[in-house]
């Protein structure tokens, strides 16, 4: 399934409705009831317009949603904080304590070869994540950058994506990264796409989802 929308809020609502209407139910390993759609692609044409809006919506509910500051820190902080099992920042900016995938690879690559199709970063580390006992591995696995019509477009691959509570945070974080790279390349941000292998909603959140859509 492919969904295209101009702004994040519209894309989000459309997908939530699609999962509710067309998804299939299953019970996950923690015994929670989910409804999921496999291989769902969403493209937001102008994420810059409202990439932070969904977080505000999530804050209206009774739970505590991570702050924009924490969401941003997690993607940009290259230090491996002991209190997290893993963190996106170190995987992006200091993979295996060796590689700054953005500043030492993506930016120089796209500067030297703007039409490159090799601008991909990995947040998945098979040497630590491919472990049967390890349940805490990143959901966001790869991010692909491409310059098209002098705009930086971004596509990411998410293996497991709670579309109701997770996607608002994901889209915010990925857009910040897209903006960071585009600023360094002196170009505008373009479309942002997410490819979710399992796009799902937990049954316990159906009520909230219905309120939103």
């Amino acid at each position, binding site marked *: 399934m492919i969904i295209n929308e101009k702004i994040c809020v519209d894309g989000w609502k459309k997908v939530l409705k699609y999962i509710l209407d067309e998804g299939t139910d299953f019970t996950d390993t923690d015994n929670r009831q989910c409804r999921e759609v496999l291989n769902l692609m969403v493209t937001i044409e102008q994420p810059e317009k409202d990439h932070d809006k969904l977080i505000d919506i999530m804050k209206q509910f009774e739970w505590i949603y991570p702050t924009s500051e924490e969401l941003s820190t997690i993607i940009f902080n290259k230090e491996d904080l002991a209190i997290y099992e893993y963190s996106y920042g170190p995987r992006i900016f200091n993979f295996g304590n060796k590689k700054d995938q953005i500043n030492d690879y993506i930016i120089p690559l796209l500067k030297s070869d703007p039409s490159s199709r090799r601008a991909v970063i990995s947040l998945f580390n098979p040497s630590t994540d491919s472990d049967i006992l390890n349940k805490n591995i990143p959901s966001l696995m790869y991010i692909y950058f491409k310059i098209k019509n002098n705009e930086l477009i971004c596509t990411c691959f998410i293996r497991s994506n*709670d579309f109701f509570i997770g996607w608002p945070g994901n889209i915010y974080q990925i857009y910040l990264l897209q903006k960071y790279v585009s600023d360094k390349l002196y170009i505008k941000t373009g479309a942002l796409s997410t490819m979710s292998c399992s796009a799902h909603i937990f049954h316990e959140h159906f009520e909230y989802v219905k309120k939103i859509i």
Partner: protein
Amino acid sequence: MRDTENIILNVFKNNSTKDLSTEFLSKKVYPQEYSQIENLMQSSDIVYIHDAKRRKFQLHRKLLYYMNKLIDSKIVKITRIAEKGEKYFTLQTGEDDTIIEKGYKTVISKPAMTSMYINQYESRGVMKKYEEDSWINRLNSIMLECAKIPDIDRLYNLIIECFTNVNDVIALNEFENILNAASDKTLKEFTSKIAKDTENSEKTVAIIINIAQTNNNIYEFINHYAEINPKKMNIVFNLSNKDLQKHSKILEHIIEKFSDSKIKINFKNNDLSRAPYFKGRAGIYNFDEKDWNIYDKKFKGNVVGVSCSQSQVAVNINRFFEIYRTDSEFRQAILGAAKTLLLANTIQRRKSHEYFRNINNINYPNSADFYKFSRDYIRFWNYDWHKDVTENHNLFALVENTKELVDNFCYSEETIFKSCGIPIRFKIAFSSAFRNFDQKFMGERDYKKFTVNKAEDYYNGEIKEFLGIREKMFEIFDGGDRLRIFRKSDFVIADILHELGIIFSAYKIPFFTYDFSGLKGTVKLTSFM
């Protein structure tokens, strides 16, 4: 920045949320001068007293000169002027501010305002954060794995290093590894030093010993421990029902020495719980059984220490229901406490590099393993479970369904944060509180003391019913609980062993304490021998 200003800031650093008086500050900033003044004040000679007052006035003036500079720099502000014109000051900085001045760097961490969900309960005296000034930037309890620590000197140094990061207790798991290898002399020195250090630092050290794994060194260790009777240390003896008979000689020795010195003896029943239990000032701590199984399989042997509890709050149940009436209000209040703990954890995560630098080095390079099994605690005080069994059933049900609510909240938050790429662990355990959590807040104890005079008491209907309720409490309090048995009347050691046998085999009480404080005279082995 001048030295004096820096000293003043360091005083505020340790009292970041308080109003400090001119006198208090003078005392801390000019300790020598102040102590001379105090000596003069003691004098019976009026001339000396006048001189002391004059010097005190001068000292205050001197301090105020620097205080005014800090006020001008918008670092501190006057909060009030008390009688006789004495000024009070507080930090003007916001939460977690860093003050950097010429050549010096003074970092002052002011606890963030995490109280928004429990403000009303705190102000009405029904809820209380543990050690409010350090409730975020210190952990409540950690456990060190003695099997991974090469020798007793390294263990001592580690404990001292950890004191700055802990606000309640450091547990020493499988202490027999140290006990069996060290000489009597080094063990004595270690125990004496820790006894002193814990008193000086207001921290607790809990020693966990698996009786079945000990060698003969334990006899001398127990003798010395009973002799010095440390105020801020405790020992938990782990054993199974089988060990009771197999190691009865050691137990006799412990009972004899500890009961003579009126030291409480803590037992953990290994048949009922594999996870360690230990005692702090706030209450009992333990690890979740399922978590412990994972720890045992995957982490044990690779880590030197683990965090057990990060932050905690206590609820005074009786006072709560004097003010609020409904179950729904109770659930809301506890959910508020859970949200507060989540906010506290968020700040801890953000500042973990600063707050827990020492701790993060303990398991290096596997630093993240330190926090993998940690929880937060909500503790309950004065809940009168014993008074009316029928009423208690209602309270059981209320606490049980509140626990379910809190567990769901924790699970949802973990999912939310994980979905956003923030893989947090957020678990809240329920447990009872000790009065020492905060004596002023707790007020008087309103519990029925469980007193035993002889083994037959355990077959008494009323006591059986009481213990049945306590068994239920152990099920509800997933963060651990403690049955305290006040042992009265004369006994021979065989009596106590017999009683232990009954508790171990007939009741599902994983952790209990024999308290001999009500005993008169000393215990004899004679009739047993």
